[in-house]
């Protein structure tokens, strides 16, 4: 694992969550007690940021995920097939066992006409069509990122294409992994848990507790400054950024421990306040991102 041992046992345990699960997947797969499952990663109304984030994953990396954990059936950005052939590949899983991951919100205005993901035998396929068709038959549906989980940036005011979350258009449970983007570990860990044990324990908004059970503020490296009332007045100050608008206290996720880009850093360490990208309602409800002159 690429992480340094911390003196805090809780930090160490959190950092080992993914490796523990993935190593278990490896050993169980080797003796045939678990099998790889079909994975469809569908992009709807979004920016493809979550698949890009997943490609940045490490320990395990993306290659491990698509070779050892899953049969990676389809992704809009990574598919080598094109046109009709690609869409046929997408729907080829219908009737089989598969896990559906969706990134992007679901555009609903004019029956989803503003988010066309492809064409099948001449007929335009909307993101709404694809999610409804694939969502009902999937063993699990995972909403990856802010847009899929609650509308996110795609549903920000004035929300011209009337974007909504994945669970809003399906009559079934959806596991939500909010974040802009979703951390590779949050997805891979959730997938590993599904392969080994089924659905992971979830909170009241269907977020996996193993990642979303603490707030940024709970584990922030600058927490002591908050407790002592020592606040940054501007970006670059090395103290608590509460007075300039940090949303860490209302954002449930483990960024301070897990960190980003192969676990080397995270926003607060780089003097940027948390903007609440993993909180429901982001971005509108998390604004303003920066404020000055606060008492």
């Amino acid at each position, binding site marked *: 694992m690429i992480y340094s041992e911390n003196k805090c046992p809780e930090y160490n345990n959190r950092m080992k969550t993914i490796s523990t699960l993935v190593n278990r997947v490896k050993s169980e797969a080797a003796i045939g007690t678990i099998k790889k499952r079909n994975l469809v990663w569908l992009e709807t109304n979004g920016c493809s940021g979550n698949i890009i984030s997943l490609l940045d994953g490490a320990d395990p990396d993306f290659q491990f995920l698509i070779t050892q954990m899953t049969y990676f059936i389809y992704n809009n950005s990574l598919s080598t097939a094109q046109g009709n052939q690609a869409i046929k590949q997408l729907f080829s899983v219908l009737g089989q066992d598969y896990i559906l991951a969706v990134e992007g919100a679901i555009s609903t205005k004019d029956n989803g006409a503003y988010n066309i993901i492809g064409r099948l035998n001449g007929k335009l396929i909307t993101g709404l069509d694809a999610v409804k068709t694939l969502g009902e038959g999937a063993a699990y549906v995972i909403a990856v990122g802010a847009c899929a989980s609650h509308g996110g940036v795609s549903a920000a005011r004035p929300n011209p294409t009337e974007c909504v979350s994945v669970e809003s258009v399906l009559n079934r449970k959806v596991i939500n992994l909010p974040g802009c983007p979703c951390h590779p570990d949050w997805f891979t860990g959730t997938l590993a848990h599904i392969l080994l044990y089924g659905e992971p324990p979830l909170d009241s908004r269907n977020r996996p507790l193993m990642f979303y059970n603490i707030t940024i*503020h709970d584990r922030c490296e600058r927490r*002591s*400054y*908050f*407790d*002592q*009332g*020592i*606040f940054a*007045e501007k970006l670059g*100050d*090395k*103290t608590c950024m*509460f*007075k*300039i*608008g*940090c*949303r*860490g*206290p*209302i954002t449930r996720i483990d960024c301070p421990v897990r960190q980003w880009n192969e676990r080397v850093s995270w926003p607060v360490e780089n003097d940027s*306040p948390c903007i609440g990208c993993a909180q429901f*309602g982001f971005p*509108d*409800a*998390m*604004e*303003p991102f920066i*404020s000055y*002159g*606060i*008492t």
Partner: protein
Amino acid sequence: MNDINSLGYFFEYLIKDIKNDMDKLYSSTCKNKGQVMDHLKDRITMLENFVKSINNNYYFQVQAIPQPNKVAIFPQGKVVARNNNNNNKTFTVDELAEFNGRNGNPAYVAVNGVVYDVTNNPTWAAATHFSLSAGNDLTSEFAACHAGEPILNKLAVVGNLNKVV
């Protein structure tokens, strides 16, 4: 401890802290100058806010003052602006609007006719909370999101809201 004594201890600790920080900065062995300067700046800001608030004609209550003989690395003296009768002030809607957490004013919100101080509440960063701003009557918003949750009793009451002027 009455308010005068509290203020006395508060200033004593502030000044002691400032002197300590200056001594550390003069010392050639000080290895964490940035942190010490941050601390010094914070203490000066506390004094500054106090003076600003005096100009706004508010009395003060000092919270969480360390005991005189207790060693505190970061004394937690915080000055919070209060009305002059603790929590019995009546605010009009216009008066409440001034307490928006900006320009030296604390951040107050009203729920069900009671005015609460959210200046240093962690969920109210920059005097805002899920697109809501301090200085407003948020009764309906509170009912929509937090009905039945026992969270208001964690906030300091600073008065009542009189909607009829």
